């Protein structure tokens, strides 16, 4: 009797299941990326109703966006507003994460607080910003409230500090809950025997926090910092709606992506391309660190294995 053995090669299924992702990615992300880079080398804009270009001009768009446009100012704005939101975000997240995970403190209703703190994150940023615009406008509820309490009113959207402060405050509200939950997971991942040992040695909670928790969550803090910075570069919805796209007062709250949006709207494709490429490169550099962080454990494992192998050979 002849037995028919049928070997099925499953390798091809790996490729087949990857097809939808890669085709979609190539068509809707990779080709646009290449076309963006390509366009950044062409003079191509609308002057009134006449189309100028496209004409190849090498790196001229880059030099004019760096030296003749206000991009450096807008990048600075973006960075300043991001910092104003990030500093309170990280401080409160560290504090809240420490409290929520503190076994001695045993806080109640943590589920409720976590739900409330994360909620602003799922809100439509543009609607949230519109809400703040109406609330903090000159005759809005907040100024009404200040007025009725006998306090002086404040023209939030006419002052640099007021406008930037509001944007930063919204960013803070939208992201501190997310950061708190990530840091909590990190703290809960720490080996509990370390905390027990510290307790036996008589360390108080501040000492434990400083000597055990902080050093061990440092990599995650770096991860939070960099992902937040990448998000900060993309800051758009909130300032766009709050200032109606003009970054007032005096364009001090104009962010880099708002500037890009302006060029895309006015069909100034050369400049938009150069600006996109610059932002792309900056994000790539930052992403590299995130990539390293995500894949680090795997690399570490490999290094360990190799080292062990070496010692065996010796």
């Amino acid at each position: 009797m002849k037995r028919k053995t049928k070997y099925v090669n499953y390798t091809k299924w790996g490729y087949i299941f990857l097809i939808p992702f890669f085709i979609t990615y190539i068509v809707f992300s990779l080709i646009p990326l290449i076309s963006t880079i390509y366009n950044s080398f062409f003079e191509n804009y609308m002057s009134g109703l006449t189309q100028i270009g496209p004409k190849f001009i090498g790196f001229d768009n880059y030099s004019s966006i760096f030296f003749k446009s206000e991009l450096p100012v807008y990048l600075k704005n973006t960075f300043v507003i991001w910092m104003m939101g990030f500093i309170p975000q990280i401080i409160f997240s560290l504090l809240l994460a420490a409290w929520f995970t503190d076994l001695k403190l045993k806080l109640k209703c943590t589920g409720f607080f976590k739900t409330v703190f994360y909620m602003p994150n799922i809100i439509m940023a543009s609607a949230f910003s519109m809400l703040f615009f109406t609330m903090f406008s000159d005759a809005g509820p907040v100024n009404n409230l200040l007025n009725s309490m006998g306090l002086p009113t404040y023209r939030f959207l006419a002052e640099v500090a007021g406008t930037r402060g509001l944007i930063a405050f919204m960013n803070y509200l939208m992201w501190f809950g997310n950061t708190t939950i990530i840091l909590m997971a990190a703290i809960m991942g720490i080996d509990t025997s370390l905390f027990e040992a510290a307790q036996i040695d008589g360390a108080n909670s501040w000492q434990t926090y400083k000597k055990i928790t902080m050093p061990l969550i440092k990599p995650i803090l770096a991860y939070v910092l960099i992902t937040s910075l990448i998000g900060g570069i993309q800051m758009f919805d909130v300032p766009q709606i709050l200032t109606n796209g003009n970054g007032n007062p005096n364009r001090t709250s104009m962010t880099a992506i708002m500037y890009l949006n302006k060029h895309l709207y006015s069909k100034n494709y050369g400049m938009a391309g150069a600006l996109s490429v610059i932002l792309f490169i900056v994000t790539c550099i930052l992403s590299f660190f995130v990539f390293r962080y995500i894949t680090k454990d795997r690399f570490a494992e490999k290094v360990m294995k190799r080292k062990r192998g070496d010692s065996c050979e010796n």
Partner: protein
Amino acid sequence: MKTRKKHEKLMLNSQRGFAYIVLVIISILCLFSFYILIINTTRSHPDIQKGFSLLPGKSFMNNLKNLLANKQLPVLTGLVNSFFVSTCSALLATYFSAMTAFAIHIYDFKFKKYAFAFILMVMMIPSQVTALGFIKLVRDMNLMNSFIPLTIPSIAAPIVFFFMKQYMSSVLPIDMVEAARIDGAHEFRIFNQIVLPIMKPAMAVQIIFTFVASWNNYFIPALLLNKSNKKTLPILIAQLRSADFLKFDMGQVYMLIALAVLPVVIVYLFLSKSIVRGITLGSVKG
């Protein structure tokens, strides 16, 4: 000894009290704007102009009626459009990301390592930096004012993929797939009938996340949609912002914001537990 213990207890209690005060203050900061929003949807325009109030009015239905009858803002179409686009992209992103994760997790092939590394590398690239090429492509394909460029690209969602891969590594042993193969199941059937049910919890969380992301998306849709019957809610909000604000009925303004925000909030409140759990799974290793 006894006094020391007493002292410690006192310290702990005061620390706890302080913690609760801070937590309550932050909660108020989070909820205050939503409270004002909800209150103001129930107040009429003259009431809102008159001043601040913590108590609701009686004009909720009136505001809603006026907003839906507003000819300048196609709110109802906006809601339907937003809902359609978000549902489609949520389903596509979740299903195909699970499929991509399945391919990387279960099969062994030559380029697997590179494919995985590639997806992780492009994960953080924001859609804004490729927007120029994207708009040009959409224009060349004649798809301006169509929902295709807002839904189909979600098939390739690196972040959703990463989450699925993380989850799959912890719940799907390869033996299970092999057992199904011995039973003669086809690879597609294994994925659809065995893997997907196991992935249900992760799928549910990701459907919500991708739905919310798409529902809130403003940058790309604003560049692609300019016909009033195609606009989604964020575009209508931007339109309202750029309109002559002083002439507007404030009751309607608050009502539109509420319509944009509340559906997501309601779903969130029902599922917050699994959502909060989901954040940690997707963002941090281990």
